[in-house]
């Protein structure tokens, strides 16, 4: 396969970035929008072509999809350690190419409408291109070093985009928080890379991931605190991934990052950057699976499950619709991690891995759609808060329908995309551990509940006090909504397991009917409950009631049920647990991280006095330092 075309995919956005960045004064805003969209259009076309070539035209050789790598030696770091640069194509890389291209293209088109009239229009498109370039680079990386470079570059461009509204104090603070927190997590990633380099002598994914390779057989060579060095390395790398993918307790930056422009949230904080952590674990999956019987993988699973639950519960309480979506994203990312964590390797055992990637794909589509719809709403009424919304379905029909589609998809209602991928995840969890399955199922219900809560809040119910009549967004914004809605409907029909599995050979999946039924039931239950609580209060139930007919009457007339649910959800779940969890998150998790920062600054303040300005003191310190050092040398280290 000719990779010359593939390399153009990242290079085009880079070129766009350079052009827009260097000539930002001379290019008219409208033109820069077109340049951005056009560039991405080319990249998307190439990505789709690549996918066609890879999966269909070339297909499997000897039953597996071959990993295609083209690389050059970038540097001979030492006589034994070599660093390469190049591009790598394998099923998950190709899949990610499509996700990044499609979402980025939609966001580019959408931004032309959303950011219209903004003074930094050209700058915005330049940053978007930079981000897209970095993300492509991350996806195509052939080794740990290369992925790390792009990993950080993604962080930088995300920093620039979150802080885009630089006149807003909160946006600036959020940008910095996101950057520093993820950098803090990257600490782990970096050390993990160094440990792997030290023990295996290579950074190359192909070598590292080869199940028969030396790197994996020799893992037991050294141990530290009861675990092998490579397990530690993988745990550390997972910490890096957890930072980017907002896993508990490194998630605190994501809700704040919502200060950025909404299309940016759709691109970065829903579909692409935040899944980088999931992608990283998937990229190294054979290592995670084979080294020390997958010890590190269990951590991934439990952190994922906990995050999924934790975030879903918090999402219920939020009143800012973008924050609801942010927590929802966290929760879904937790799902993906959970699925990776429970996955096996060969054949059908790889269901978890496959479903994780599947969910990554479908989630990207419907979550981006949700964000873009939210952006459309915010664009219309200039507020993020539920209390200012209501009854918008009359004014914004397209947004209404597309939001509903996305909400049904995330709630797991068949036959929409989310149903298929979520179902596979639950099956994989069920086969691995009943506990994780129950957690997953419960989260599925919660997801449906909170997403419909905001759906009803925005589009139904009492109309807000609108100063001027809200209106549907322009075509440049609704067109991406419609396209993404189509993808959210039909995306689930792609036979993912044919294409993606840990051993790259593909397998067949069948719908596990009982489990699917239970999951759908959980989802519908969530929808119904939210309907009762949030729709009924609006007193406009009649119209909607017809749609659900029997369900509604059943729930409505069984008054004691209603009371019971009210008690359970509103009293215990909502007021007790969820509020508590939200408070806990705000006060302790966030507080601890901020506390570490403050403590550092305080220490800095306290020791300031040492620097007195007197040369005598300095000389004293000098001599004292030398003497102490000499004493330590002679008495401590000499023998």
């Amino acid at each position, binding site marked *: 396969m000719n990779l010359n075309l593939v390399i153009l995919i990242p290079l085009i956005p880079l070129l766009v970035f350079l052009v827009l960045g260097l000539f930002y004064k001379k290019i008219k805003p409208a033109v820069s929008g077109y340049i951005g969209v056009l560039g991405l259009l080319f990249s998307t076309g190439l990505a789709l072509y690549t996918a066609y070539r890879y999966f269909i035209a070339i297909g499997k050789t000897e039953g597996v999809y071959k990993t295609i790598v083209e690389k050059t030696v970038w*540097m001979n770091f030492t006589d034994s350690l070599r660093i390469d640069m190049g591009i790598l194509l394998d099923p998950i890389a190709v899949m990610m190419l499509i996700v990044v291209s499609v979402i980025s293209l939609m966001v580019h088109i959408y931004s032309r409408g959303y950011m219209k009239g903004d003074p930094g229009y050209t700058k915005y498109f330049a940053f978007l291109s930079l981000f897209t370039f970095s993300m492509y680079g991350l996806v195509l990386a052939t080794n740990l070093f290369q992925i790390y470079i792009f990993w950080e570059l993604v962080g930088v461009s995300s920093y620039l985009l979150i802080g885009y509204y630089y006149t807003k104090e909160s946006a600036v603070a959020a940008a910095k928080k996101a950057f520093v927190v993820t*950098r803090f997590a990257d600490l782990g990633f970096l*050390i993990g890379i160094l440990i792997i380099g030290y023990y295996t002598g290579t950074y190359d994914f192909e070598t590292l991931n080869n199940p028969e390779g030396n790197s994996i057989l020799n893992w037991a060579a050294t141990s530290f605190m009861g675990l092998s060095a490579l397990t530690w390395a993988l745990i550390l790398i997972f910490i890096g991934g957890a930072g980017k993918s907002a896993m508990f307790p490194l998630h605190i930056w994501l809700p704040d990052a919502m200060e950025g422009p909404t299309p940016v949230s759709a691109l970065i904080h829903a579909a692409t950057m935040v899944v980088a952590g999931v992608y990283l674990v998937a990229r190294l999956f054979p290592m995670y699976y084979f080294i020390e019987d997958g010890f590190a993988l269990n951590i991934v699973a439990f952190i994922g499950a906990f995050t999924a639950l934790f975030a879903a519960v918090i999402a219920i309480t939020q009143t800012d619709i973008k924050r609801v979506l942010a927590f929802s994203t966290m929760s879904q990312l937790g799902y993906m991690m959970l699925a990776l964590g429970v996955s096996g390797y060969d054949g059908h055992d790889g269901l978890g891995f496959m479903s994780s990637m599947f969910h990554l794909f479908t989630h990207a589509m419907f979550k981006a759609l949700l964000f873009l719809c939210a952006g459309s709403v915010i664009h219309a009424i200039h507020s993020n808060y539920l209390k200012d919304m209501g009854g918008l379905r009359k004014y914004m029909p397209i947004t209404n329908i597309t939001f509903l589609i996305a909400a049904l998809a995330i709630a797991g209602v068949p036959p929409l995309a989310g149903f298929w991928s979520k179902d596979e995840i639950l099956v994989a969890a069920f086969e691995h551990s009943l506990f994780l399955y129950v957690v997953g199922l419960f989260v599925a219900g919660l997801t449906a509940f909170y997403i419909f809560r905001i759906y009803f809040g925005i589009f139904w119910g009492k109309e807000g006090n609108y100063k001027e009549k809200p209106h549907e967004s322009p075509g440049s914004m609704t067109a991406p909504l419609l396209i993404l809605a189509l993808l959210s409907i039909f995306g689930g029909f792609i036979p993912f397991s044919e294409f993606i599995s840990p051993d790259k050979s593909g397998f067949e999946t069948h719908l596990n009917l009982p489990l699917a039924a239970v999951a759908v039931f959980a989802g519908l239950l969530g929808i119904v409950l939210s309907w009762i609580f949030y729709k009924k209060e609006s007193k406009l139930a009649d119209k909607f009631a017809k749609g659900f007919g029997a369900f509604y009457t059943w729930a409505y007339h069984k008054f004691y049920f209603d009371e019971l649910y009210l008690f359970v959800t509103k009293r215990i779940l909502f007021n007790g647990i969820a509020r508590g969890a939200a408070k806990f998150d705000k006060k302790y998790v966030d507080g601890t991280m901020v506390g570490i920062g403050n403590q550092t*600054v305080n220490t800095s*303040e306290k020791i300031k006095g040492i620097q007195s300005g007197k040369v005598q003191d300095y000389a004293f310190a*000098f001599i*004292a330092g030398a003497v102490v050092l000499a004493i330590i040398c002679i008495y401590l280290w000499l023998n």
Partner: protein
Amino acid sequence: MNLSSFLLMRQEIALLLIILLLVIAEIFIPKRRKVSIVHLSVFLFGIHAIVGFFEIDESTLFGGMFRSNNLIHFFKNVLNIGVLILLLQSADWIEEKIVNQNKGSEFFILLFSSLLGIYFMISAGDFLMFYLGLELSTLPVTALAAYETMKRISSESGIKLILSSALASGVSLFGISMLYATTGSIYFSEIVQALTSTNLTLLGMVLLFAGISFKISLVPFHFWTADVYEGAPISIASYLSVISKGAAVFILMIILFTVLKPLAPIWENMIYTIAIATMFIGNLFALRQQNMKRFLAFSSIAQAGFILLGLIEGSQLGTATVVYFVLIYIFSNLAAFGVVQAISLQTGKERIKDYEGLYRTNPNLSLVLMLALFSLAGIPPVAGFFGKFFLFTAAASKGFFLLVFLAVVNVTISLYYYLLVVRAMFLRKGDNPIPFFRNKVYMRIGLVITVLGILLLGIYSPLYDYIYDLSSALN
């Protein structure tokens, strides 16, 4: 001794000739045309820096006192480039503020003399030459620190520097004498043969180390740094933090890796401890600085701490990563100091607060400073990232994972305060932003070179390969 062996000292001789030429020029150029001395100096040094790239044989002179090999020669070229950029960045300042005080040529003569001392210091093959070079490199700089005689703070800085460096050089001389006492030689090649770890040699080693650490400003020998940087003219602060520090790192590396090789297990511990102290102290102090020069002073202390991670490796890989890092560090720090210099020259403002809103009035300058700070913070894909990553790999290759961990923690802390400046420039409005101004040609060339360095040095991998090959010379 014949001509060809003298050519081994070509760099030194050429620089000496430039100094003498400037002395003559100072006498013969009439007072109203003194500005031409600035152009002459930049021109002559530019030629010198370019000619420096021609190869020099590997050999020794004066019975081993003076050594020349490709690594040393390469490092001299690196320093030449640094000094050239520094000259370009200072030229406007000299032209506008200094020449009319009738001491323009002093600046260049003293600066070049210091560089000459550095040449001798890093080419030294014995402790006598080393000590002479050390002194010659320090004394002119103390004069330069007190250069702006009209300013009280500048004189204070000069006094502090000369007192501290006198102490440091005394201490290191004491250390050298102990090494001489135990081994009976001052030649590097002979000392390494005779060295055993006794109490006296260890004491000698520590004192010598303290003396050199003073120039690198490692904790606890760093106290002079911030005060001197703050008071000295920016060019001199820049020189101290980049050229003088880089050279001291290089000679420390030579001494540790070759002369004190037998004591490696002990000095590894020492470097380990000092590295941790230096990174933390440098970073914690940098967090709260309000003045750009003090801020850069502490940041450069922290950077020195990171360099020790390469030194601790103790062989070819360590040498290569350290030299590579110093090269990148020169470009990054000079870019930062260059912007501070430009702003200070135009407006006299030096506080971080004054930089608020800079992006709106002077977008290009703020981009340069942002790149420089990103490079210092080690964010890919700018060069600083590669420098740091390789240093960490060097330390990790000896299994010092705890040290690497602490270093990475420090990278995160440092990111915080570098971002404070970036935030001030880009994300704050500022009540009274610095008005737009244009830099003169010299400054612009100087800044462009540094930016190119920051952007390209990391990605251009043959450079590292080249340094790695040269680095075998030390081992």
